[in-house]
């Protein structure tokens, strides 16, 4: 059933009367500024709004309702306590510019979180202010730039990026004024060391890596890479997208990275929220400490917490948000970290790896081709439908859409770009073995269907609110806002 647009429920003169003061207020607006046109907002009752959005919510898959093995996104359980406690009235009503004397409770949480993140990453300093992974990346590369600049080392113009990297990596390098330069991957999924050596030189500002890589495997030559890059005068940037895979097992700082961003909405289980908010805290090694984005929370000798800002950190790359980033997300991450505790941190990677390797083994045994059959899975792995695509024409999209009918969210498809018709599958540590087994059964059924009735498969999904959508039309006949008159 189609759900009407909220604007279609609108009637002139209708309102949610309990929600605003009705009295007249005397305002002295200059007449030439006064608005004449409609605001374009719907006029509905409170019940209509509640009903509409409640019904819309039911048209989503989510972790709370479905297994959601979206590779590289770490869709694990978001503990409800994190939300509840971050939304205590005092936290919600705290103004970002409230004096430090009225903020010690909040600041204590932020300080503790910084300390925890330092330890789990092996870095010397942490700034919580970046508002998403991509902003964390920006901050990281900007710090690399600031570091070279501070040394007067201004000829470095390139950032090396493996071809398997997230698109944000080259985009970030560009944003920071660098030329991104691709480094190929070898057939085992590791960085091609010879190619790296050729690329390294006086122009090298640094390299952006995630480890395990987006190919789902651990970069085994990381120590060598680190040595080579440092010798060339470059710095190493760690994309924290895959931190969940190694939490408590190996620390980016110990691998030689100079700077790291963490996707707290992945590894620290804050909600993805249908596309955000994220949180991209950055950690740095000793040499980058002066350049961290502000503000950072410090502790005075009297035990009181305070903000460290431009006065304390004059070499900082500066501010990345109007206040201090996504504070409410950070509170959620903090609650999660405290509930996990020391032992829980170690278990994250262990059970994420157990689930990924188990699911990989089962799918391999069921006849699916692994992109890297000789490697351990990290917390995720890749299967490729290249063979089946050739044989019966089935695509990764077909499988993805059909999985929805089986009650599973699809894995990431067509990423990484290197592997044809691929599915990047990340089950996360919070899923039960039965959920994984159910997924395997669905995959087997779909593989069978691909052989028996490819047309049926291509028509999927059948049980969603809509069938397969026309993306081409969406881009060509752009309809990005409701215009009743145009309809």
């Amino acid at each position, binding site marked *: 059933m189609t759900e009407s647009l909220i604007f279609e429920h609108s009637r002139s003169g209708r309102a949610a009367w309990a929600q605003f003061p009705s009295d007249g207020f005397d305002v002295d607006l200059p007449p030439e500024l006064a608005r004449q046109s409609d605001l374009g907002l719907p006029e509905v009752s409170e019940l209509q709004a509640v009903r509409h959005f409640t019904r819309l919510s039911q*048209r989503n898959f989510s972790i709370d309702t479905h297994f959601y093995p979206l590779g590289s996104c770490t869709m694990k359980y978001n503990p409800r306590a994190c939300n509840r406690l971050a939304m205590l009235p005092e936290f919600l009503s705290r103004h970002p510019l409230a004096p430090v004397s009225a903020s010690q409770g909040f600041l204590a949480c932020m300080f503790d979180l910084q300390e925890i993140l330092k330890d789990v990453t092996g870095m010397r300093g942490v700034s919580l202010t970046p508002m998403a992974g991509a902003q964390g990346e920006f901050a990281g590369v900007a710090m690399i730039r600031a570091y070279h600049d501070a040394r007067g080392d201004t000829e470095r113009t390139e950032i090396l990026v493996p071809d398997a990297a997230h698109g944000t990596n080259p985009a970030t390098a560009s944003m920071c004024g660098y030329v991104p330069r691709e480094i190929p991957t070898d057939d085992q999924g590791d960085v091609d060391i010879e190619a790296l050596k050729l690329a390294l030189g006086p122009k090298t500002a640094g390299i952006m890596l995630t480890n395990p890589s987006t190919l789902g495997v651990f970069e085994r030559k990381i120590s060598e890479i680190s040595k080579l890059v440092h010798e060339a005068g470059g710095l190493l940037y760690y994309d924290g997208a895959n931190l969940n895979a190694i939490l408590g097992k190996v620390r980016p700082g110990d691998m030689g990275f100079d700077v790291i961003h963490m996707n707290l909405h992945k590894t620290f289980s804050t909600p993805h929220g249908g596309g955000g908010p994220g949180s991209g805290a950055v950690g740095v090694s000793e040499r980058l400490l002066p350049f961290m984005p502000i503000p950072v929370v410090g502790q005075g000798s009297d035990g009181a917490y305070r903000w460290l800002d431009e006065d304390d950190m004059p070499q900082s790359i500066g501010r*990345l948000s109007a206040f201090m980033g996504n504070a409410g997300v950070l509170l959620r991450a903090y609650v999660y970290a405290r509930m996990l505790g020391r032992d829980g941190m170690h278990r994250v990677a262990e059970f994420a790896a157990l689930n990924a390797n188990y699911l990989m083994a089962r799918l391999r045994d069921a006849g699916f081709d692994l992109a890297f059959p000789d490697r351990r899975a990290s917390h995720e792995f890749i299967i490729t439908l290249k063979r089946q695509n050739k044989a019966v024409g089935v695509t990764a999209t077909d499988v993805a859409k059909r999985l929805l009918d089986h009650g599973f969210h699809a894995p990431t498809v067509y990423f990484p770009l290197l592997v044809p018709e691929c599915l990047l599958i990340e089950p996360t540590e919070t899923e039960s073995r039965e959920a994984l087994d159910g997924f395997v059964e669905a995959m087997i059924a779909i593989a069978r269907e691909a052989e028996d009735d490819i047309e049926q498969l291509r028509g999927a999904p059948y049980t969603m609110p809509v069938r397969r*959508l026309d993306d081409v039309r969406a881009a060509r006949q752009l309809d990005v806002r409701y215009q009743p008159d145009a309809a």
Partner: protein
Amino acid sequence: MPFIPHTETDVEQMLAAIGAPSVEALFDEIPADLRCGRLERVPEGMTEMEITRLMHERADADGRPLNFIGAGAYEHHVPAAVWEIVTRGEFYSAYTPYQAEASQGTLQVIYEFQTMMCGLTGLDVSNASLYDGATALAEALLMAVRANRKSKSRRILMPRSVSPVYRQVVDTICSTQGLELVELDYDAQAGTTPESALAEHAGTDVTAVVIPHPNFFGCFEAVDAMTDWAHANGALAVALVNPVALALTRAPGEWGERGVDICCGEGQPLGSPLSSGGPYFGFMTCTQALVRQLPGRIVGRTVDLDGKPGFALTLQAREQHIRRGKATSNICTNQGLLVTAATIHMSILGPQGLQQVARASMANTRKLVAALTALPGIEQVFTGAGFHEAVLRFDQPVRPLIDALGADGIIGGYALERVYPELEHCLLVCATETKTAADIDHFAQRLATLMRSATAA
């Protein structure tokens, strides 16, 4: 084992299926010398009961003071329904709607959000949000540089009446891309950007002009003149607005002869609680002509195989996961949950509600100014109508007053002298619709007492 569902039997059988002797063996590709030991500085785990108590204690320590501060984050009433729906698992724990058929809820919400933001700002296209107002301004300027192909200078005229932290953020983000930010001073009486400040740059290559509405001091700039000046000088007009103010004032799409090209701002006043500064969301709208330069996600309406309407992410070719190094931005995440809140918030308030909130906030700030300037030693700095905020000059340093008020549970305002050295002893104050006459009285009385004793001392 918090959040781990595995039984011992599961572990054994799963390892057998993998063919690994132990869980440790799954990490055998990690060089042994890199492996870390126990994370000694991470505290022991707490149960939910224990962390609940700790967080309550910390929340209690900060209390719920009476806020008379705005400066970019505004305390507005948010209907209880908003966050009860936003935090439903289906919204809260979903990812970016890459599988459109299984994400129609989120996608339709964003489409409705885009429609509302286009309506409020009077422009054609909206994206699905950016991180916050400050980064939205930075992205808007990067977009202006891409869009204004005639201009080669990358020079941006930036009024000093734009929030100082916004200017700092723009500097952080844009400085690596060769943007030149040229400051325009404000008129010391009016608190707004004088015509003369712009006129100085006439005939030079200007890429874009930033027009804050209202500006950081709560004053209304000459938005029509500034928009027209920009266009007359080959620059794009970029509006930076408080969306609540738009409930009463003309839409940026209607400013001047042709309207602005890009509008952006902080979405927090539309349903996000203060929450120590985030998560909020930035918004951005633009004219149809600029749509392909718009950064961030965009949702479009299309049809499915049966011809039934449905929603999907569109124009993804602009984005980093397709264009990589050549993307319009490295932005990946938006602030989906806050957009959901804003969409529900705006639906519940509706046009009447948003107008009344704007009116009440304007009227309350005026009452606050009246109450405080009635005290000896306090005067209003800028003339003219203001929205939400006002600047007051004291006859004594304001920091000690703010600290003393804080001890009484009153957040008394934002001291301006650090970011505007010329505004010595000046305080930026704000009273939204959440403040009652009694609250304003209470503030004024406490302040009077404090000022008397400060003067006496």
